[in-house]
């Protein structure tokens, strides 16, 4: 079958790439400059936010696009009060889940905040931390049917956080340097306040990712309600 042939071709091609061999080129320079010039301990963070920060800007835009696209495709009408329409899930969550949700939610948010604030010191960063916070919200959304996310808050956080990222980049230009260039002092390595604008950017990214993913989850979960209602009304109308 075609698939077997394809498998063979892919295997044959990629097996030629040696595994575990050191062929770093640009990466060597990154590892050299990251602790010295930027004061950032986590080299991956330095790459994501500074050396290849432009990619991250694009990535943040993709997330924004996903939530905008979802809004465009699903026509969520204004603020359906899910207080009055508590049919988000078909089964009521058990008492254990509800209590655990209330207890764990602040801990999850704390963990997420820790991850994205310390992105330049430990593994992790804005995206990882934001997703952790979003899972906290997901927990609550699934546990409590009446729990509603106010989309206006989500929109504000999204927009402001995204604007902060782009704004920090443009500030570099205003101060006479290049876009996204670091204009705050690098500080000492492994300090919380090191790395110039890198932790600032990552904090903005963390907020943005958390807000966006929570918004996406909420949009999709509340659409479930609409589909149930609409299938009833549409079999009556003539589509």
């Amino acid at each position, binding site marked *: 079958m075609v698939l077997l042939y394809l498998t063979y071709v892919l295997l044959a091609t990629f097996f030629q790439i040696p595994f575990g061999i050191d062929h770093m080129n640009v990466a060597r320079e990154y590892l050299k400059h990251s602790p010295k010039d930027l004061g950032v301990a986590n080299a991956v963070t330095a790459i994501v936010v500074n050396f290849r920060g*432009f990619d991250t800007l694009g990535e943040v*835009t993709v997330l924004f696009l996903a939530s905008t696209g979802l809004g465009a495709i699903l026509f969520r009408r204004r603020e359906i009060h899910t207080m009055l329409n508590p049919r988000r899930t078909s089964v009521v969550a058990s008492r254990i889940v509800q209590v655990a949700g209330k207890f764990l939610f602040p801990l999850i948010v704390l963990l997420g905040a820790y991850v994205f604030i310390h992105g330049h010191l430990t593994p992790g960063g804005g995206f990882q931390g934001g997703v952790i916070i979003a899972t906290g919200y997901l927990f609550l959304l699934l546990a409590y049917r009446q729990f509603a996310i106010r989309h206006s808050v989500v*929109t504000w956080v999204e*927009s402001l956080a995204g604007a902060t990222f782009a704004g920090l980049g443009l500030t570099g*230009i*205003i101060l006479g340097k290049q876009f996204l260039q670091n204009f705050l002092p690098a500080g000492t390595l492994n300090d919380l306040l090191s790395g110039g604008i890198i932790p600032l950017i990552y904090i903005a990214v963390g907020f943005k990712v958390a807000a966006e993913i929570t918004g996406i989850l909420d949009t999709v979960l509340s659409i479930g309600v609409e589909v149930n209602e609409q299938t009833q009304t549409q079999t009556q109308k003539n589509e």
Partner: protein
Amino acid sequence: MVAANPIYYIALPLLTAFLLPLFGKLHKELIRIVPGLLFAYLAWMSFVLINQVMTTGQPIVVQIAGWKPPLGINLMFTPFSGFLVAFINILAFLVWLYSYKFKKVEFDNALKYFVLLMLITAGSTGVIVTGDLFNQFVFLEITAISSYSLTAFYRGRDGAEAAFKYLLIGSLASTFVLLGILIIYTQLGTLNMADIARNIDKMPQSLKIAAFLLLFVGFGIEAEMFPMNGWAPDAYSQAPGPIGAVFASMTSKAGLYALLRLSFTIFDFSVASKLLFVMGLLTLIFAEGIALRQERIKRMLAYSSIGQIGLIMIAFSFNTYLGFFAGIFLMLNHALIKSLLFFSASFLVYNSPQKYIRDLNGFGKYMPLTAFLFGLGAFALVGFPPLSGFWSKFYLVTAAADKNMIFLVVVILSVAMVELVYYFRVLHRLYFAEPTGEYEPKRPRWNAALAMILLAVVILAIGIYPDMVTGYIGKAAHAIMDKAGYIQSVLAR
């Protein structure tokens, strides 16, 4: 603070797109006005930058985050990429002008529409102006996701289906591109285009071929190359009218640019040109053939657009100065003319639910301006003088004859005949058929009419005085041929 810097092409639309929901909360009309201001500024900046690049002859290299390439990402505003970016952004302004009073959607969706419009422009610009391969992939994804959302914009069910098909094929494309980038990175350790071009010989041959094919197919899908362009007609016909213009002029150009940069600057295969030629020819013949059978006007325009892209690929595959010159001129004309055609066609079939051509009986009387503009666009596309399409076809034929490809000249001329046939069908219905009175014609409002008239004026102007643009195009053609110069301007700083 520098007023004209290529980074603004991307940073400003992104900033505005992020802030537009907040502007909307301030005052509803701001949602329609702010993008216009942005596009006007970018259009002005395009003129300034293009003049700068053309007079100094040096490309503008922007080092992002202050790191020199190949350490950092850089933007390359060469005569070639700059020319494309310039007319994309000027066209974006015209698209905004056309859709300014987009009455078909209420407040919430107008917001999404303008956000997506800004982001698709920024995405296409990013693909063209970047000098880093992975960055190109990221911007390609931005463009793609905006396109999916815009295709599904209307409430009908066909939009979602077209968008889903587009999404499936587009994701396949991005997978291929990622795999290609993977191979290149593991062998050369860098992602900067100039650096890759410099070190390309260090790759073993089989891996080089694999990477090239993967990237070629991946970018080719976005550029509507045969045979992976099944998504295109559906997407063009289901998207809102101005978005069809955006697809034709911006996103396909972005994919095409990536293909060209890949074939001529990064890789050094001589077989790349032959591959371009064959694929271009296939694209052209299939697209124009199927366009004949179309009964719906937007699908017809979509297939015509794909055919034009095939023509552009053929032009570039000649690998001579004349070929590049013709190719770039064709790109410019394709963007201008197709935009005009989509703009006018969108009004012509406004009230017809299925957008059939036969619904257009006699509209020439009721909508004289729109019908006339459509006719102008059609004639320009086929290549009648004194419209701009004539010059691009002329240069193409010259380039082909220069390489002694007489059979190709025959093919091009017969394809022009085919185009004439199916466009004339529409014009026949517009002017010579009796109106059935079934559908109400819809007159365009002042802003849409203004946008269309501006396009028509430009097409006419270039047709009468092609020297307006031939200077720019000549420099651009030299730029894309000059691989060593590209590498030097990036790395020798």
